[in-house]
């Protein structure tokens, strides 16, 4: 067993894990942060995307021990109290979801996108979503949501 200490959504967390424990397992099973989903479990679908030291990563393809000392943000860490993060608000306003399973990963991926693109084109958004799969929406409203959310984040930054 190994001991890991990391910051999750601003709080310091220490946990005992097996070396083979995935970051997503630590988050969901030990820290009860079940907003991060496991879809494909093969690094394809992006339902498990979280931020590690500010970068979006697939938490099903990272060991918990690799996150030792890191700053981790999950979907639960975005909103401030009852006030949604601008990207969450944009997904709601634009109906960027249907069943909602992929949404946490979509939103976390989109927040990372917004940090690197101030006035994005639809093409840039669609290319960025290479690592996030949605089986309901056909992506149309997700793309609209990310455009609106990115612009809203630019206004509040």
């Amino acid at each position, binding site marked *: 067993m*190994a001991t890991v200490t990391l910051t999750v959504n601003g709080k310091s967390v220490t946990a005992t894990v*097996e*070396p*083979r424990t*995935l970051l997503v397992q630590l988050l969901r099973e030990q820290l009860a942060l079940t907003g991060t989903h496991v879809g494909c*479990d*093969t*690094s*394809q679908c*992006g339902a498990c*995307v979280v931020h590690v030291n500010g*970068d*979006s*990563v*697939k938490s099903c*393809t*990272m*060991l918990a*021990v*690799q996150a*030792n000392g890191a700053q981790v943000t999950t979907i639960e860490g975005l909103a401030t109290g009852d006030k949604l993060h601008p990207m969450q608000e944009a997904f709601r306003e634009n109906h960027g979801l249907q069943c909602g399973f992929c949404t946490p990963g979509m939103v976390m*991926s989109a927040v*990372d*996108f917004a940090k690197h693109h101030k006035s994005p084109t639809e093409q840039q958004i669609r290319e*960025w979503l*290479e*690592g*996030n799969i949605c089986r309901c929406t056909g992506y149309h409203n997700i793309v609209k949501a990310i455009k609106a959310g990115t612009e809203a984040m630019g206004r509040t930054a």
Partner: protein
Amino acid sequence: MYNFEYRQAQSVADAAKAVGADEEAKLLAGGMTLIPTLKQRLAKPSDLIDLGGIAELKGIKREGNAVVIGAMTRHVEVATSDVVKGAIPALSHLAEGIGDPQVRNRGTIGGSIANNDPAADYPAAVLGLNATVITNKRRIAADDFFKAMFETALAADEIVTAVSFPVPEKAGYAKFPNPASRYAVVGVLVARTGGAVRVAVTGAGPVVFRQKEMEAALGKSWSADAIAGVKQSAGGLNSDIHASAEYRAHLVTVMAKRAVAAAG
């Protein structure tokens, strides 16, 4: 996943010692191939030696007429580096097309070339740009590094520390990506450096290779038209659910022409 012991290497020497002492131990770089492999129980290492904490393996710098990229430098850093974009834009373009943004945020150049996946992008860059692979023991020319499918010249206790890319006069990379994985069904990197032309093909065969007929044709005339008539033989090429050997052979010429056009 089978269980294993994990430890973070403190230095390259420390990692080499650990991996040399135990043939069941494996090095962990970005983990973008190794972790999925472990999850499918296709490998059962006794120990994972994590290279992620070794600062000297990270970073990009210009050294004379070469761009030197540390082995643990992530794809996103190569894709967005001003040094790479200025000196070898084809290389930043190649890195930008690997996998997806989350893979590029973790995957590393050293991990990619040490794994030597036949459909990976970086082997085409290393071979096509005539790079030198620098390890903890020696410097290995690109022509001597990639041996066979998932096989390189690296010894058991040898660790890639950096890759040195000579700055070319012109270079371009074009690939036909698998629509799901973004691995190269076929990817071709063309480069002209000091008058010498190299054409490196990944994805098509069991291991990256040079297309010497195209090199000769481009040496005479640097244009997409010069190689339009060069046919790649399908013999020995990969054939799978994604593409037949004949289809891949055809794509080699198409991608090479596009790479030359991209190089300008």
